[in-house]
């Protein structure tokens, strides 16, 4: 896992605040109900911070954010350099 992915995992663990839940790079988050849609806003913002990219929501489906690995792949695919 890259340091950025690790930071994201840490962020998600703090966000879901469920004792005993572990999050790996491939843990389903949205489809498993660990994360709700309002929280996707925060994840998208965090992902922008970690990747230094601008990620337009219009190009991102919730399924693209389902795991930490998919988030970073999505950022690579649709992210744009910050102006």
């Amino acid at each position, binding site marked *: 896992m890259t340091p950025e992915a690790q930071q994201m995992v840490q962020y998600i663990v703090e966000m879901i605040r469920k004792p005993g839940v572990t999050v790996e790079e491939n843990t389903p988050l949205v489809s498993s109900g660990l994360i709700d*849609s*309002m929280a996707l*806003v925060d994840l*998208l913002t965090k992902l922008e911070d970690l990747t230094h990219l601008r990620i*337009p*929501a219009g190009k991102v489906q919730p399924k693209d954010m389902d795991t930490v690995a998919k988030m970073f792949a999505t950022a690579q695919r649709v992210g744009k350099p910050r102006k």
Partner: protein
Amino acid sequence: MIRPNNLIVALDAAPANRPFITYWVDEDERETVTFAEFLSRARRQASVLRENGVSAGERVVIIMPQGISAMTTFVGAMMLGAVPAFLAYPNFKVEPSKYRFGLAGVTANLRAKAVVIDDEFPDEMLGHVALGEEAKLLRVGAGREAGGETAFEPGEIAPENLAFIQHSAGTTGLQKGVALTHGAVLRQIEHLRGVLKINDSTDSIYNWLPLYHDMGLIACFMLPMVCHLPVVMQSPLDWVMQPESTLQIFTECKCTLAWMPNFAFQFVPRRTPQNRWAQYNLSSVRALINCSEPVRASSMQEFHEAFAAIGLKNSALQSSYAMAENVFAVTQSEVDGPSGPAVVWADGQEFRGAHRIVPVPERTAGTVSFTSSGRLLPGQLVRIASNSGAALDDGFVGEILVSGDCLFEGYYNRPDLTQKAIIDGCYYTGDLGFCLNGELFVVGRKKDLLIIGGENIYPQDIEEIVGSHPAIHDGRVIAMGVYNPNLGTEEIIAVAEVEHEEDLAKSREIEGEIRSSVTSGLGVAVRTIFLKPPKWIVKSTAGKPARSTTREKLLREHPELNAEN
């Protein structure tokens, strides 16, 4: 200008080359159609529908993602004299079982001739689209709109013909279909054009609201269609995932008008990193209209304080009282004036005990405040009625009854519901409010009102106090009344989510603190405060706490509260 007698004639008169809908994906990707292109695509949709046997008066259900094709299909159906209705498109936020339930009920009631879906519509949902014997399922993708001009002559449509059915907002799947005529919709738009002081060469609209709700459908689709204004349209889902795009779109597209529900006025500033605010400019905004009941002064203030530095005018934040049953707006605050809507401060005891507004100086102890929803639109009439139905004077709180030239014909196929809702030409809104100085103030929903020992308590007021405790997750609070047969009155119960699960260990302490702040703020006692872990409260499709579903969940988990049953 000649008054058009139906919506299609009004659209036909638009300047051909003026941009109509811009569908915004992001700063580098968007699709714009002019009025002429929109018309041509709508005609093709009309032809497809006609080839599939749809004719005048028949219902067409449209279940498509927010976008230009959904809109051209809607207009295409109207061109045939058919009666379209948008229904919510399934998305990951909606529980599939709940969505299916809602869809089956609504489609059965409409007895649609055609149900139009897009190519991506999930197959597992199809079984729950209740198709009548004669209904056809059509997949009308954007591909069908390509190609040359179709020869298509719209039929005659009279003002008293039904234009479409819009569904009242609801989270239960038992949404009611509000049937509206061309005439009523056109009258509403004529009034809006006047009170919003619309200038058809300089105004433009920004919209992320779903088209199956009145704010999206009337204010952001029918109004610009008839007044020939450009609209920048975004998917509600994209907006929820990136509320910052509100700032981006106003900055780039310089839209002048938008409508938002109350929670969005907090959501946008809270979910946009503060270090990015300065990149944006909101000076183009002429009116950003809060269409909730009630309008919360604190939410408007939060938005204004956040963005005044980037050009948001003092007068830009406005309010309106609107509902699907009246096509849309009943009142509108004064746009382009010196400030936003009026705020009145009143004695809290008089308000709760005597249901009366006694104005007091601003922010003194024990006062309550209300934000005006503005003055009546022309042709509209509001009466405030007591529980016994007697008309109340200015300054007294009662149910808001609406009548006028925009009122709906009834709930489609539901004479039982219509009879209860419209009595002697007045629509009983179920909202509580009062009139003062010629303006309407909306206080809350009648069914949410708690009557505690003869005093009227509004759950929102309790929720605001409970939610301000630092251990409570802001906005995740529901207050409700539960009848106590021993006392012969309702008692207040509150359920709230703690910010961190560990806080539950300190429940007793937190409860005590909350209890004393409610008592000192409102002068009433809360019987029990249930503290729950994060994500316990049930949320509606809009992401807001769902009052009745949460109540059911609480009563299920705590059967000791069920004395009322």
